[in-house]
């Protein structure tokens, strides 16, 4: 069957099977910034925004996305570059496999939470696993980023 989605502002008509999850369909269509890390809805690497809400594309039926607005990290590239400056300034980008999904969730958090405490930051982002950084460098980067963009 075919679905029509509006991805990063672009209308795409894509082929899929009813049981296909959005991750595979997006990757096949060239949106390889959507990563596949775990197969069990555990790691957050496949995060995309659907109608501006962060969701796991690995756990979202592609057919259900029919007619919906989807944003990958490439759709918010300018903001992402800004955040990348803070993340790389701490060296916390590391292997970067989880980074697109993680950064997208950070940008979402920035919109949703006002002056979050560290506990709130950690809680909001707890679905984005990272095995490289130990999370501390990411926290330092996020705090500095939020401070800078709020000023």
């Amino acid at each position, binding site marked *: *069957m075919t679905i029509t989605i509006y991805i990063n502002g672009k209308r795409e008509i894509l082929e899929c*099977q*009813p*049981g296909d*999850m959005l991750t595979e369909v997006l990757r096949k269509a060239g949106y390889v910034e959507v990563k596949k890390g775990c*197969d*069990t*809805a*555990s790691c*957050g690497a496949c*995060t995309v925004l659907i109608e501006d*809400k*962060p*969701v*796991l594309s*690995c*756990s*979202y*039926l592609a*057919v*259900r996305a029919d007619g919906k607005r989807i944003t990958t990290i490439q759709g918010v590239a300018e903001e992402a570059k800004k955040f990348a400056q803070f993340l790389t300034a701490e060296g916390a980008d590391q292997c970067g496999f989880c980074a697109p999904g993680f950064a997208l*969730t950070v940008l979402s958090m920035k919109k949703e939470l006002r002056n979050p405490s560290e506990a709130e930051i950690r*809680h*909001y*982002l*707890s*679905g*984005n*696993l990272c095995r490289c950084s130990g999370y501390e460098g990411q926290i330092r980067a996020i705090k500095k980023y939020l401070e800078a963009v709020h000023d």
Partner: protein
Amino acid sequence: MEIREYARPKSMDEAMHLIHEEHGTAIGGSAWLRTNTKTVMLGVDLSDLGLEYIREFQDHIEIGAMTTYRELETSLLLASRFGKIFSTAVGHIVGIQLRSIITVGGTVAGRYGFSDLNTTLCALGARVVFYPNIEEDLASFIEKGYAGPFLIEKIILPSSARAAYQQMRISENDFPIINTAVAWMGTEWRVAAGSRPAAARLCRNAMKILADSANPSNEQIEAAAQESSKELQFGSDIRASATYRQKILPVLVRRALLEVRG
């Protein structure tokens, strides 16, 4: 999961027809479908039925079956009526990206052992409404299931309760080893325990010990806590043994009761 045919009905009647007559399989949150190796002949997507809501009525609250965990967690209405119990109970399930997908109806329908939410709903005395308009006690549905195909429309909660949730996990993103929710309903106490690792059950004997006082004594609380581990069955899995579960349930029940009583 392989899905041969897909339908996204626009009305409850149509959905009910597909499930009842065409042997369709209801698709709620759709999470974890990919880990399922079953083949479904007809997948019935419930996302266009307008079942995503939390509404307040004079003497109760209704939660649509397709309401996501994220909505429960962030609902100001639920927080004002039940305190932090929803955000505490579901807040540690993987991450917001998953909680924005998984639904109340899917969780109740699945009667999952590991569920944090079903334990909470049992303690709050929730009722489940099967379309069309068949209402049942949620705890007894979790225990006994439903004969034949069904379609959950909504969950009904009392207007308010003082409640608390306690759980034990090896690490924060893991599934619980054991969990409990307790609630003072205004006239009675309710105590439920789940992830035993089997599904949630009410601790009826413990509830009797607490009786109808909003301020049970420490002795009553301790007795009820101890009773909770005697009246339920526990099993072993990779996370913990039955012995451990049985040992710490009273600790969690006591802590939850003290949290509510103050």
